C-alpha cells in the first residue's frame, strides 16, 4: 500500500522540493503550509508520517507535534522535524514534544529519503 506523508512548511519551495522527492520515491504526499493548515488536513488520509518545519507562522512545528500526539489516531505516528538549528535546544524541545527524528537543513533528497526509511521503513 502506498504510504502517505504530510509535509508541513511555510516555504513553498521547500515544500515543493520535499513533495517532489517523496512523490518520486512513490509516496502519497499531502502539503500543508503551517501547523494550523496541517491540523485541518490531517484526516485527509491515513498518514504514515509527518515531515514538519519548526519555524512557521500561525502554529509552529513544536505546537503541531504536541497537537498530533494528543490525537488518539496519531498517538504513535512518526514525525520528522526539519531543523536548521544544529543546536540541541530546539531539537530537544521537539523531541520532548514527541518528534520521532529530525533532519538538519540543508539536506539533499537522498538524505531525506534515508531518514524517512529509518523511521517508516
Amino acid at each position: 500500500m502506498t504510504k502517505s506523508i504530510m509535509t508541513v512548511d511555510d516555504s513553498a519551495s521547500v515544500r515543493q522540493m520535499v513533495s517532489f522527492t517523496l512523490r518520486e520515491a512513490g509516496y502519497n504526499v499531502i502539503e500543508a503550509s503551517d501547523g494550523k493548515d496541517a491540523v485541518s488536513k490531517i484526516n485527509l488520509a491515513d498518514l504514515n508520517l509527518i515531515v514538519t518545519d519548526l519555524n512557521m507562522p500561525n502554529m509552529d512545528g513544536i505546537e503541531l507535534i504536541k497537537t498530533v500526539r494528543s490525537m488518539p489516531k496519531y498517538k504513535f505516528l512518526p514525525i520528522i522535524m526539519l531543523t536548521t538549528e544544529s543546536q540541541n535546544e530546539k531539537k530537544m524541545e521537539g523531541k520532548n514534544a514527541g518528534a520521532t527524528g529530525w533532519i538538519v537543513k540543508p539536506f539533499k533528497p537522498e538524505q531525506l529519503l534515508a531518514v524517512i526509511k529509518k523511521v517508516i521503513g
Partner: protein
Amino acid sequence: MIDSHRQAFIEEAEELLLELESTLLELEESPTDTELIAKTFRALHTIKGSSAMFGYDDITMFTHDIENVYDFIRKGELKITKDIIDSTLAAKDQIHKMLHPESEENKVDENITRQILEAFRNIVNNQKAINAADDVQTTFSTKTETKTAELVIKEYLISVKPAQAIFVSGTNPLMLLNELTEFGESIVLANFDQIPPLERIDAEKCYTSWEILLKTSKSVDDIKDVFIFVDDQCELKITEIDPEGKLRKEEDFQDFKKLVADIAKTKYPDIKMLLVEFESSLSQIVFNQATQFENKKNKDAGEGHHDSDLNSSIRVNAEKLDELVNLVGELVTIQARLNQIALGNQDQNIISVAEEVERITWSLRDSALNIRMLPIGTTFSKFKRLVRDLSKELGKEVELTTDGAETELDKTVIEKLNDPLIHIIRNSIDHGVESPSERENKGKTRTGNVHLSATQSGGNVLIKIQDDGAGMDKDVIKEKALKMGLINENGELSDSEIYSLIFTAGFSTAKKVTNVSGRGVGMDVVRRAIESLRGSIEVSSKKGLGTTITLKLPLTLAIIDGLLVNISDEFFVLPLSSVEECIELSSDDIEKAHGRHIVNIRGEIVPYVNLRERFNITGERLSIEQVVVANIKGMRVGFVVDKVIGQHQTVLKTLGKVYKNVEGVSGATILGDGTVALILDIIRLAEKEEVEERSSN
C-alpha cells in the same frame, strides 16, 4: 524539473526579500516589536533553508550568520539598532544579487559580502561578544567534516534495550534493526524475558530488547548514528568482539555464528528436555548392560535352567520398573489436578509453576517408559536357531532374514511376543514354505525365505512375518469352516474375513499332524496373546506366492492413548488406535432400527453396543447420543455413549485380582480431578454382544 523548482525558489525568495525589507522598515520604527523580530528571523531562516537545497550555498552561508544575529535578538540577548537595520537591508540587496548570479548588472561583489558580514560580526562583538562569535565560528566548521572510511571488517555485539515508552515518539524499533542489519552480516536475537503475563501487558509499551551480532566495516559511531533519534530512549551497548583480531579468520566467525544460532534455538525447556533425554538414555545403557550381564550369568549357569532363570531375574527388574512407572502415573494424575486447580485460580504464579511441573512430569514419564523399552533384535536372533532346526526337521531349506532389529518395544510386550512369534514362524515353515523339490517345480529358488521385520508407526510397532511359500488357499479354508459350521454356505466373505477364520479355536487345515503343527496350540491362542497386549493381527496371502502376517502392537502397555467418553456420571476410555469415527445417534435412528442395535452410517449397517445397558448405568438416555465407531478385527462396531469428551493419554492401571474376571474392562485410569475412568476392552465387549445377539435370535 529541477529548473522549475529553482524558478519557484527564486520567486519565493524574491517575495521573502520584499517582505523582509518592509518588515525591517517597520522594525526601525518599533524596534521592540517581537512579532516583527520573529517575522524577520523567519524570512531569513526560510531563505537560508531553501537556498541550501537549491545549490545557493553562498546565500546559505551568508544568511546563516545574519540569522544568528536575529536569533540573539529574538532571545533578547541583542537589541535592534540602526546599524543592524542598515546592515540587514544591505544584506537583503546582496542576497537579491546572489539569486541572479547569471545577470551582469547583479554581479556579486564578494568584498561587499565580506564587509556586511564584518559589520554584523562587529555588532555582535560589541553588544554580546563571546557567545555570538563562538557560535558563528563553530557552526560552519562542523558542516564540512568528512569521515575517513575504514574498510576493516569488525564484529560487534550490540545490545539494544528501548525504553518501554519508545512507541510514543512514533519510533518503530524494528526499522532501526533493519537499518542496522543492512550494515553487514548479522544475527538478531530478540529477548522476550520482560514481557509480562497477558493480562498485564500494555500494548502501548515495548517490552522486547535485542542482541545483535554484526559483522561490518562501519565504525561504532556509524552504529550509534542508527540510534541517533532514540539515544535518550534506548539503552545501547556496543562491544567490539575481539578487537585484537585473534578470531578474524572467516571460519572462526562461522563457528561462532553457529554457536550463537544454536544457543538461540535452544531455549531453557529444551535444554531441560535434552538433559532428560540424556539421563534416560544413560539409564537405559545401564539397564541394558545389567540385562546383558544377567543373560551372560544365566548362560554360564547352564542351558537347562536358562529360560526360567532369565525370566525370574528380569521379572525382578520389571517389577521395580513397574513400580516406578506406577509412581510416575500417580504423579501425572496429581499434576493434572494441579493444572485444574491452577487454571481455576487464575493465579499467574501457580499457573506457571503448574506448567513447569507438567513439562517435567511428562519428561519424567517419557524417560521412565523409555527405560522399559528394549530393541526387538534380541528376540529376532533367537529365531535363527529355531528356523535352522525346524527346516532340518521338516526336510526343507529355509533362511530367516530380519529387518528393523533396532525397533524398540516395551519389555513386557517383547516377552509376551516370544510364544506367538514362534508359533507363527513354525506355521510359516510347516504350512507355507514348500519342500525344495516342490519349489523347484514351481520355478522358485530351492531355499525358501521367512522375513521378519519390525517398524515403528506412530504409537505402534508393526511386526511382519512374511514367507514366500505356497500361500493360503481360500477355498480350503472355506470348506473347512463350512464343515466346522463356522460360516453359512451362502455367506459372502471378504478375503480378510476368510483369512481371519484361521484364528478360530480348533481350526487347522493341516492335512496331517506333524511334530510341529497340530500340537494343540492353534492360531486362536496366538490371537488371544496378541489381543492381551492390546494388539491386533492381520493376515494377507496370495496363493502360490506366500503369506504375510502383520502384528500391530502398542509401543508400551503402561500408557494408553484413549478417547475419553462419559455415560451419566461414569467415565470410560476407549483405545484411540481402534477408533475410526464418532457419529450421533438420535432417537429417530433407534426407532428406525426396530429395537435392533444397528445404525446406518452412509449406507453401511454398523452394529453397536449400548454401553449404558451393558454396564447397567442408571439415568435417562439422552435424546441424542454419540456412537464411537471402532474397527475390531476388520469389522466396524459402534459403542453408544452420552458424550465424547476428547483424547486422553493416560497411565494404565490394572484392576487387581478381584476384578480380574470382569469382562469388557481391561484396566482403569485416574482423571485429573481424581475420578476413576474404566478402560474398555472393546474386543471382548463386541464379542459378548455378538454371542448374546446370536443366542437371542
